């Protein structure tokens, strides 16, 4: 009896295969060495400031414009609703924001940070992973292996994380697959470990509301590692810092 594999179970099943190849060819023709990102339906892209726009000459049908420069995010129109103040409530585990309406009334908005919003990040990341290729991840793993000590690579393969301490600043970094890097301060005399912040950065861009970059997760880790080693100051200045309680921190 011949056993057939269902189409959706095939490891090489790639719903965006043809489109990806076309984007890739176009990027190479135009000398875009890092390539063009793959738009994913329902998950808008946020690109770096210098990304050429528009890129392909056709519109991808998504609820919002997929190519949004970071500066435009969070813009509030003057004369309409204005942001007054906001804070994180430890007790309620939510962000409280105050807005002033055009009639002068102040209203509040409560945004829980646990449960639902974190689940959104998980699911959006899963959705965005459709843009990734398994082969690219394998290639990235080979590259990462060449940059790490054997025990670091072992930890990464087994846990998705590894540690490295900067000789320059003495900050210890916990690099994580598909999550922001965590900067730690470790005191040798007392053994105390404190979390400084989380650093989130993606080459080219990322999928909004997720931990997914436009490149495979290990490429993001490689970028973080190289920047930390080669230009730590720039690594901090280019990254977004997420507080530990936020969903974006991935803790």
């Amino acid at each position: 009896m011949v056993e057939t594999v269902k189409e959706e179970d095939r490891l090489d099943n790639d719903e965006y295969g043809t489109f990806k190849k076309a984007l890739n060819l176009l990027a190479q023709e135009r000398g875009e060495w890092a390539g063009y990102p793959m738009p994913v339906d329902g998950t808008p892209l946020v690109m770096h400031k210098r990304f050429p726009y528009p890129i392909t000459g056709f519109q991808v049908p998504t609820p919002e414009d997929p190519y949004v420069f970071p500066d435009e995010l969070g813009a509030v129109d003057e004369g309409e609703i204005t942001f007054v103040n906001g804070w994180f409530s430890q007790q309620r585990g939510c962000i409280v924001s105050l807005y002033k309406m055009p009639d002068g009334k102040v209203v509040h908005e409560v945004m829980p940070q646990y449960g639902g919003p974190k689940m959104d990040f998980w699911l959006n990341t899963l959705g965005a992973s459709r843009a990734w290729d398994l082969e690219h991840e394998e290639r990235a793993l080979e590259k990462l292996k060449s940059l790490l000590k054997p025990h670091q690579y072992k930890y990464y393969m087994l846990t998705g994380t590894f540690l490295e301490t900067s000789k320059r600043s003495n900050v210890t970094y916990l690099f994580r697959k598909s999550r922001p890097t965590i900067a730690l301060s470790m005191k040798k005399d007392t053994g105390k470990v404190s979390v400084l912040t989380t650093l989130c950065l993606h080459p080219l861009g990322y999928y909004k509301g997720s931990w997914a970059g436009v490149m495979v997760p290990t490429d993001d880790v490689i970028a973080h590692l190289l920047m930390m080693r080669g230009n730590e100051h720039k690594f901090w200045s280019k990254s977004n810092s997420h507080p530990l309680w936020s969903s974006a921190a991935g803790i």
Partner: protein
Amino acid sequence: MEQVVLDAPPEEMGGVDVLNCGAGHLKFDFDSSQPKEVEHAKKVIQDMLKKGYMLFVNDGGEQKQVHSFDPNKEVYYLKFEFEETLKETPEKKKRGRPRKAVSMKGRRATGVGPTAGG
């Protein structure tokens, strides 16, 4: 005065790996004895730096960021650490300090595109 690190016996072929979202890693290998390959790699390196890509090379077992590239001398000039050069030339201010130069031949660089905070 720039320091030029002479080519060590090549442990690996010279080239550039670029993190790429469409093709995994783009690899530009060049054999130092093949002028066309070297020329092509130089163009790619210059174009990448012009477009704001970061290039990292291994220098003495440490990853260093490339500040600029001289295609005629075929060397990368590295971004220096302020503290390092302060020891060497304390009387000089940061501007005008000599940059360390490393040969592109027999050396593998890694290119990372412009970034967006996540």
